């Protein structure tokens, strides 16, 4: 098949976080490898773009409000965005978020890094695994980790799901690997992460 067709309303809907955000995967569903593209939907008062920066991935982003209406907050500044609005963020350090104002608000998010071949972002893995039971999440990570070699976030999340699934030794091995790769970030993530409760004593010892 040389092409794929879908309607936005027919895309899989995966809840993310606790602010009503619904992730509608596009890139992974259609096997797009040249740029990042996903949709998000939310009802009024809920997040339609989660609060984040793009410092980890260095992505330039473009948000397209496809339907409804959203209020974006960009480094603390509010921007009204009815359907048809384009919000362009070339600077990865800008903190960005958006809340749906009207029913049926949908936002298309596009991203890639200037001057580099596109690589799928590991957060796609985290978002999907976050909706699975620990044993299923573990299977999902093991099937997909090969696409993200040397990625501290993937190792760290694997440690979390192993800890939740009762694989203490495996969890500690992945935790050590993550710490080696990105010590400052991993210390920050681990500080209050209840996913690591079952190995908390060992984690605290490793962190000194």
């Amino acid at each position, binding site marked *: 098949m040389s092409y794929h067709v879908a309607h936005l309303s027919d895309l899989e809907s995966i809840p993310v976080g606790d602010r009503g955000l619904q992730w509608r995967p596009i890139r992974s569903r259609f096997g797009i490898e040249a740029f990042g593209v996903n949709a998000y939907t939310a009802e009024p008062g809920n997040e339609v773009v989660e609060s984040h920066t793009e410092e980890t991935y260095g992505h330039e982003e473009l948000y397209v409000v496809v339907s409804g209406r959203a209020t974006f907050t960009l480094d603390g500044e509010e921007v009204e965005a009815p359907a048809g609005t384009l919000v362009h963020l070339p600077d990865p350090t800008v903190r960005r978020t958006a809340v749906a104002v009207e029913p049926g608000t949908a936002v298309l998010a596009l991203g*890639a890094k200037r001057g580099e071949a596109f690589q799928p972002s590991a957060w796609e893995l985290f978002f999907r695994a976050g909706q699975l039971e620990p044993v299923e999440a573990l299977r999902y990570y093991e099937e997909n980790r090969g696409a993200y070699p040397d990625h501290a976030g993937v190792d760290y999340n694997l440690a979390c799901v192993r800890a939740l699934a009762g694989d203490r030794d495996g969890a500690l091995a992945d935790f050590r690997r993550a710490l080696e790769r990105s010590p400052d970030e991993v210390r920050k993530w681990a500080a209050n992460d209840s996913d690591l409760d079952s190995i908390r004593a060992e984690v605290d010892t490793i962190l000194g």
Partner: protein
Amino acid sequence: MTWSVTRIADVPKNGPHWRPVRLELGIEAFGVNSSHGNTGDLLVLEHDESLSGHQELYLVLSGHARFEINGEEIDAPAGTIVVVSDAGARRRAVATADDTEILTIGATPGEPFAHSAWEYAYIVSGLYDEGLYERALERARGFLQAYPSDWPVLYWAACSAAKLGQNDEALEHLRRAAELEPTVAPRAASEDVFDSIRADVDALQR
């Protein structure tokens, strides 16, 4: 400003339908443009992406369109996503309702994004076709500072300069374009706009 906010309807059209979103916003990480028109308008010109190798995604933002991909028809109301991963697939789209807007995103897997040669040439040729020769030449000069080997822009810069009677500049652009692309010289030989420098233009073919 570290961000910009624009309504897609406010992105000025170049020609009857095309909105150069990427250029207007200064996006450098992927290709993104839009086309707007009414019932019967051809909004995605028939083409393939064999040269660029682009994967493309089309999103019908408003209205209703009919896509044809390798001869297969696809009915596409607002909200439809069409992904064409096969760069060799022939594709086109026609509006089947008024106020139809189709957003197009494209890039090549495994390669850093680089703008397509046609993109800047579309801007310059659009202004040229509207008779805005000074503006066309001004935009071409700007593009050529960043991309001096963009032969389609060089060609339209030559046409614009010739229209303005700036023959030395016209010939300079044309010579450079002909060095870069073999089809330029025969094409220029048949263009009336170069009548005032005909002998020099004909000499490019030898």
